[in-house]
């Protein structure tokens, strides 16, 4: 039995997915990204091995992706997170034509070609307050847990929109909402709606229509998903483990390369 690990070293968290040679997921791991990429990747990989019930040395191939993909000495190959996200989403939803990836640092809209290849993509602009890190910061400011805001946002009665495109000014806007005594639920809901609107126009830039697969850590927030459902015409498909899709895609692509390589070995006289 061969095992391939996909490790996604993102700005917020480092995710690992281990698959076997049937491309079946055996384990997942996650660790908060910190200074030392190698160490973080190690922690995340260990967690995944534990879940898979295998030893580290049983891993045959490692594909790294994400911001820190080049910082992983033990990798066999590095692939960009856009390519991996597309491939992972395709594996989970073979019909999908569009992918929305909302991570800590940036938001990506991807249009797919056959077989889950990237056709075109659009990453959020510089200065854009369109990412998960932004939501995290406002949670800290509003003194609520990240995992609560999803549901909290659903209680909103009078959502407070955020107009500014700059994350810093958007935070100021939120502070002003607070100063005006607006409720936390309304503010967070407003944030979700604004992010959804921005994501939508990003998707439109790659010709979006119909259904979209929503991946990345932010997809874990119910409020965000609902906000998207309200604004997007088509269906929003959210995988069970949205944060791990990119790592999963890396693992699948890694497996492809690994099989090619393995075949090359066997064929040798």
């Amino acid at each position, binding site marked *: 039995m061969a095992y391939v690990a996909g490790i996604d070293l993102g700005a917020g968290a480092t995710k690992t997915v281990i698959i076997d040679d049937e491309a079946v997921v055996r384990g997942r791991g996650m660790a908060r990204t910190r200074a030392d990429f190698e160490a973080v990747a190690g922690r995340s990989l260990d967690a995944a091995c534990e879940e898979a019930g295998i030893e580290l040395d049983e891993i045959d191939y490692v594909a790294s992706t994400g911001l*820190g993909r080049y910082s992983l000495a033990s990798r066999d190959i590095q692939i960009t997170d856009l390519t991996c996200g597309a491939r992972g989403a395709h594996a989970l939803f073979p019909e999908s034509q569009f992918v929305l990836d909302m991570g800590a640092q940036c938001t990506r809209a991807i249009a797919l070609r056959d077989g889950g290849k990237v056709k075109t993509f659009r990453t959020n602009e510089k200065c854009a307050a369109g990412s998960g890190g932004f939501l995290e910061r406002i949670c800290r400011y509003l003194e609520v847990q990240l995992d609560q805001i999803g549901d909290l946002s659903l209680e909103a009665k009078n959502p407070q929109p955020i107009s500014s495109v700059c994350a810093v000014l958007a935070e100021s806007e939120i*502070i002003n909402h607070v100063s005006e005594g607006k409720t*936390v639920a309304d503010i967070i809901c407003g944030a979700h709606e604004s992010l959804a609107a921005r994501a939508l126009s990003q998707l439109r830039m790659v010709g979006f229509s119909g259904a979209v697969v929503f991946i990345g850590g932010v997809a874990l927030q119910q409020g965000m998903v609902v906000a998207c459902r309200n604004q997007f015409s088509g269906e929003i498909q959210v995988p069970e483990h949205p944060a791990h899709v990119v790592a999963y895609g890396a693992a699948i692509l890694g497996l492809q390369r690994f099989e090619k390589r393995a075949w090359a070995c066997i064929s040798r006289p």
Partner: protein
Amino acid sequence: MEYAVGIDVGSTQTKAVALDTARAIVARVLIDSGANVVRAGKRAMDEIQNAGIAREDIRFVVGTGYGRYKIEAGDTQVTEISCHARGAHMLFPGTRTVIDMGGQDTKAIKISAEGDVIDFCMNDKCAAGTGRFLTGAAEVLGLTLDEIGEISLRGTKPVRLTSVCTVFVESDILSHLAQNKGVEDILAGVHEAIATRTIGLVRRVGMDPEITFTGGVARNIGMVRALEAKLHVTLNASPEAQYCGALGAALYAMDHVMAEKHPSAGVSAELPVWVDE
């Protein structure tokens, strides 16, 4: 006894100062603003009273800071620009230039010998380089705001940052770490970058000494040194610095108390007072 109180409701912390008619500080309060400014204003007032100042003796309350219109006890509001200028002038009478680094924006204020604002500049629409950037940097490195200043002083080869935009501090710092740059050097770079950006602001109003550094960040020794290195002067910075806005507000409040006592001065009618909006 008669007292005047100034309350500065900032984006992160709320400060309050009470003065007696001799303009001596008789009480001082510092609490987290939290997500409810109305509550923050109330709590500040309570704390002042806990410090032994009876409510009925508080004759006038001036609110300042972003939450100034939400302070129920506030008789009037004055912007933190005017307040910081006036507070800095009381703490350091020689002050001619005030640098206030807050979470939302950075201000450079030129003041007269009497402590009046002559000219001021705030970071333009692009909020890069405000105190928030330091918070972001500290978070990525898993440090607290109070630590980073000290650490930055140990940096020998400050790194170069792409921008001082909070949105990019994370990836920027992570890629430095990926290149095995030391935390000291990264933080030194962070402080230097913000200092450079701030100097640009100070230049707009001229850099007449003495220069007083107010606001919460003034407690960050790394920031103080970085600014001094660029300004080639020693800054006035004291632990009182973070109360500067509240102190200024209290001084304005005392103007009103005095004006009431001596209507002949007839000035208080001139002081800006908004019907609550």
